[in-house]
């Protein structure tokens, strides 16, 4: 087992009155498992419009050995809100972020596990295909959605958000499962085609343009879509839910989405 710790140096991201984000997409178990300590420290990361050695920005410590990415644990420490693309495209191993993280955490992830001990900014788990993403705090907007122009978002994997989630989560979702313990803001599951979303709190206009998949809302629905059809009341785990089908705005043939709202 190998552990690599990146501790953000105080003030390392400061440039005048600004704090310029750093892109840590090269710092995944996949990319680092075979590298020596010196190589890891001199890995280039983009900080604004120039590349820097990772060591200039993070204190780096490496312990243990690994024969593959799955035996690597990467830990990020410090004030991580301006640290972007943690675990970008990772396929194996583990990443733990000790604090709230910047945008695109776990985006395009295919496997492995990311734990954020804080909140995650927008586009966490975007276009995720596999693996596990646990966010102890809140998730920002476009969680598990897709980048501009794509028409398929998350296709697989598991995501748990223990706090609230922002707008447009899981847009164009096609597979996998998302649980939000708190509330989800506007348009959860927009354009959803498959997979499952469980929102334990409230949701605003969930399921618009849904053509497949399932959304379960345990709290209130604010602004129910006017283009869903009530079908029946069903019982899940001893609780009664109203079951709706939609979205009829896209036509009856395509309206294969299921929206379950606890009554």
């Amino acid at each position: 087992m190998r552990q690599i710790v990146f501790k953000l140096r105080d003030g390392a991201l400061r440039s005048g009155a600004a704090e310029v984000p750093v892109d840590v997409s090269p710092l995944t178990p996949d990319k680092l498992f075979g590298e020596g300590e010196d190589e890891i420290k001199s890995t280039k990361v983009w900080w604004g419009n120039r590349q820097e050695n990772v060591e200039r920005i993070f204190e780096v410590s490496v312990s243990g050995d690994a024969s593959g990415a799955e035996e690597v644990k990467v830990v990020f420490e410090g004030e991580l809100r301006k640290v972007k693309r943690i675990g970008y495209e990772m396929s194996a191993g583990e990443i733990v972020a000790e604090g709230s993280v910047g945008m695109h955490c776990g985006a395009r992830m295919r496997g492995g596990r990311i734990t954020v001990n804080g909140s995650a900014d927008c586009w966490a788990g975007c276009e995720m295909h596999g693996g596990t993403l646990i966010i102890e705090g809140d998730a920002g907007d476009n969680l598990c959605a897709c980048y501009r122009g794509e028409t398929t978002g998350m296709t697989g994997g598991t995501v748990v958000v223990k706090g609230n989630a922002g707008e447009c989560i899981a847009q164009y979702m096609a597979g996998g499962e998302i649980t939000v313990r708190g509330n989800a803001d506007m348009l959860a599951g927009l354009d959803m085609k498959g997979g499952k979303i469980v929102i334990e709190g409230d949701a605003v206009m969930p399921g618009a343009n849904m053509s497949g998949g399932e959304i379960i809302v345990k709290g209130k629905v604010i602004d129910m879509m006017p283009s869903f059809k009530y079908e029946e009341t069903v019982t899940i785990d001893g609780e009664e839910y109203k079951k709706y089908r939609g979205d009829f705005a896209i036509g009856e043939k395509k309206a294969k989405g299921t929206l379950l709202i606890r009554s």
Partner: protein
Amino acid sequence: MGGVRVILISGRTLEQGTNLENKLSDEYMNATAVCELSERELEKLGLKGDGTERVRVRTSAGEIVVAAKKGEGYPEGVAFIPMGPWANAVVNGNTKGSGMPFFKGIEAEIEPTDDEIPSIYDLMRRYKE
């Protein structure tokens, strides 16, 4: 005298547009440092809405003092400030992953005040501090 809770929207007006490239002028300030309210809201606030009275508008993003004016066509609970620096003093900058802040549909609280409307220079000075 209590305040009222409204949904605040900002947008273009002809006067605002005409003075768009003359923003340091009094005309621009007169055109944009204004909150238009429906008769109902004005009644609740005990104001005439002739443009001589002032209100304080407060949102989660900040607060601003502007002139109160009667607006036509507004449903109850909706208030309007022409787009510009006074409106933006109370607009939240979080774009929620879209790049676009909420310039319209902002929850706001409005109350009468005797405080002065800040000039454009006062407003900018605030930002510099």
